[in-house]
């Protein structure tokens, strides 16, 4: 059988039900195989859109996403999604075409050294050198993408090798002697962690995207509620703990709540779970949580003590570790009364400094109000993707995510243009769910073209553009830190999103009245097919509160 037909068999064996891609010269054989392989292929309009769609699919479903591109520019267009998937630990397999082996290294037409270019931003990559390697490499790629700390894997297949004939036998095992992730978690360390928790008077649980990736949200709630541990999450961890729970302090970090950041600042014990102490969380590292000792639970040993030295490191899968930690903690019979003082201090912060904004007195829509309206219109039950910028932070602050895998954003790389294609991928993976994208008028234009894909494929995403006519977050920084010298942030009135939506075969709406916003949004949500909603919001509104970059949490402003 042709190697590409074997490739299709491998994809089916891995349970792949959909791939996102765009054909070209070097992957023509693969596309010939797709012709009758019986795998759904979604023809995207730009490879980056395909890559982000595969990410959105993976984040919403927990399954491995697949994106395809041809050699050269097709492959390099995948670089941003690959890097994004690396930073946010998203399981995606990227399959790229490559020029014929005889042309390799000759600067042939559409030749790019994809393995070399992507090397720093992949979990692993395979350069196929013999068609016989294809089936095993594909299975190894899926195994690597999905297990341990998930991440992107690239498989680069030269055109001539992909059309070669090979004897195909299903591969039932993977052989990766250099890859053995630790999932178990050391019992002795878990016991020490339980004791530390039992002795802490000002503890806090700081959970990240690892809790979501591990599927350990229920286990986290179990741990948090076996006593009354306060919980905060990173922007990647939102939904890992219910956003309406009474022990929930809100998101932490640069635009987190004061309660969460102050609690981190004053804590005596921080239990970090699947989080990596990013600079947007720690602020000034030398003054981060100065009184705290750290339990650090992570499946990636290299994260432990990378930025902040851990006192009790536990390497393993949170889903495996948290129930054992909860059991050990329960067995100690700690006195819950000891946390009273801590909670009364936290409650003061919560009462004094809730998330707040000054609402308009007329019909003007404040951006924060827009998120609250969307929360109400969707009953808090939508899968929400977002782009990157002010709207992302407001969405993170005001949409109280009740469950994991409902919040799909680009946290680590901060990729503008992520939201729309990610929503598309999420909707393909979860066709029965309401999928909305909260976009900025700047971000959305970076992968707008995928609206055509949505129309063609009937992917009914609802995109809500928070339109302030600015690159809002950059404008905010220029206002606060660059003396209001607004340099290259005014996006003007272009394009006309309603007309553009119609040109793409989607429904376009414009909303600018806060009094009817919720019902207008409900109407948009009830409209068939893809819908693009241009919501006009206050032009110059700042995202607060805020830890100015490079400063400690207690210096929060706004």
């Amino acid at each position: 059988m042709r190697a590409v037909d074997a490739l299709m068999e491998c994809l089916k064996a891995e349970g792949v039900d959909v791939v996102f891609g765009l054909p070209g010269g070097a992957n023509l054989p693969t596309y010939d195989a797709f012709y009758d392989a019986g795998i759904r292929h979604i023809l995207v309009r730009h490879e980056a859109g395909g890559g982000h769609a595969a990410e959105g699919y993976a984040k919403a479903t927990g399954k491995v996403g697949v994106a395809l591109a041809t050699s050269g520019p097709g492959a390099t267009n995948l670089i941003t999604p690959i890097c994004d998937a690396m930073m946010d630990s998203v399981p995606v397999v990227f399959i790229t075409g490559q020029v014929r082996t005889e042309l390799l290294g000759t600067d042939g037409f559409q030749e790019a050294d994809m393995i070399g270019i992507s090397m720093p931003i992949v979990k692993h990559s395979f350069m196929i050198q013999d068609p016989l390697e294809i089936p095993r490499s594909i299975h190894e790629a899926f195994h690597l993408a999905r297990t341990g700390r998930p991440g992107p894997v690239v498989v680069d297949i030269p055109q001539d090798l992909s059309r070669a004939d090979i004897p195909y036998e299903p591969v039932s095992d993977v052989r990766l002697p250099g890859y053995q992730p630790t999932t178990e978690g050391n019992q002795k360390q878990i016991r020490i962690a339980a004791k530390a928790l039992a002795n802490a008077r000002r503890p806090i649980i700081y959970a990240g995207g690892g809790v979501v990736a591990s599927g350990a949200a229920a286990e986290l709630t179990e741990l948090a509620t076996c006593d009354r541990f306060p919980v905060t999450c990173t922007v990647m961890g939102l939904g890992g703990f219910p956003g309406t729970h009474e022990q929930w302090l809100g998101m932490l970090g640069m635009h987190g709540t004061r309660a969460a950041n102050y609690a981190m600042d004053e804590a005596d014990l921080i239990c970090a779970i699947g989080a990596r102490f990013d600079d947007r969380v720690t602020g000034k590292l030398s003054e981060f949580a100065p009184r705290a000792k750290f339990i650090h639970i992570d499946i990636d040993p290299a994260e432990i003590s990378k930025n902040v030295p851990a006192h009790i490191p536990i390497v393993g899968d949170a889903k495996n570790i948290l129930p054992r930690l909860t059991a050990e903690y329960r067995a100690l019979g700690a006195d819950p009364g000891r946390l009273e003082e801590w909670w009364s201090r936290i409650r003061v912060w919560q009462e004094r400094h809730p998330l707040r904004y000054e609402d308009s007195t007329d019909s003007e829509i404040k951006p924060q109000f827009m998120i609250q309206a969307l929360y109400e219109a969707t009953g808090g039950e939508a899968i929400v993707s977002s782009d990157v910028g002010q709207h992302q932070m407001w969405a993170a602050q005001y949409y109280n995510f009740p469950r994991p895998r409902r919040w799909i954003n680009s946290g680590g790389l901060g990729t503008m243009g992520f939201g729309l294609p990610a929503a598309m991928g999420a909707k393909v993976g979860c066709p029965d769910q309401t999928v909305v994208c909260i976009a900025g008028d700047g971000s959305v234009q970076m992968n707008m073209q995928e609206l055509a894909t949505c129309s063609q494929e009937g992917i009914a995403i609802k995109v809500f553009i928070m339109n302030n006519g600015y690159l809002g977050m950059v404008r905010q920084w220029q206002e606060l830190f660059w003396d209001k010298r607004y340099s290259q942030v005014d996006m003007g009135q272009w394009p006309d999103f309603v007309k553009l939506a119609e040109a793409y075969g989607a429904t376009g709406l414009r909303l600018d009245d806060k009094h009817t916003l919720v019902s207008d949004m409900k109407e948009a949500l009830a409209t068939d097919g893809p819908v693009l909603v241009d919501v006009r919001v206050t032009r110059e509104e700042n995202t607060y509160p805020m830890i100015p970059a490079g400063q400690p949490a207690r210096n929060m402003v706004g």
Partner: protein
Amino acid sequence: MGEPATKEVLSLDELEAVSGLRTGRKHILSILVENKPGVLTRIAGLFARRGFNIDTLAVGPTDDERLSRITLTLDGALHPIDQVTKQLHKLVNVLKIRDLEPRETLARELAMFKVSADGASRAEVMQLCEIFRGKVVDVTKRSLVIELTGTCEKVDAFEQLVRPFGLIEMARTGEIAIARGRSET
């Protein structure tokens, strides 16, 4: 579940951070990798982007043709070695890493020195060569090429001594190392 030696009461004050420390000495890492294309690039790239400086690097075959051994030395005063090894372990083609204990390790490198040696200085250079158990492998009227093996400290010392005579060129392999005794490196 019964692990001994954990104290019943644990005060938070007793907890100490367990890693991320700088040792302040030279480290020799012996890394067993799969003999596949691109492996060295992955390792070199990792060092470059994480800002780890490699002092020396030597790559060669092992007794198993499917494997290669990379020996590299780096300064434990500049880098937290545990972070370096943990990052290396994430590379799928890396099978095994040993941070070799200096006292239990035999480390050697090969160096070649081209020294100007005419008339008067020739005898002196050859005498130094003999003291260091080097070997003269090429002679012309005005120069000598000396081959020397030893620890990097020995090679450094020899370099200091011959430099005043006129060191024309020098080439060094970087150290390779193997564990003493029966146990595997």
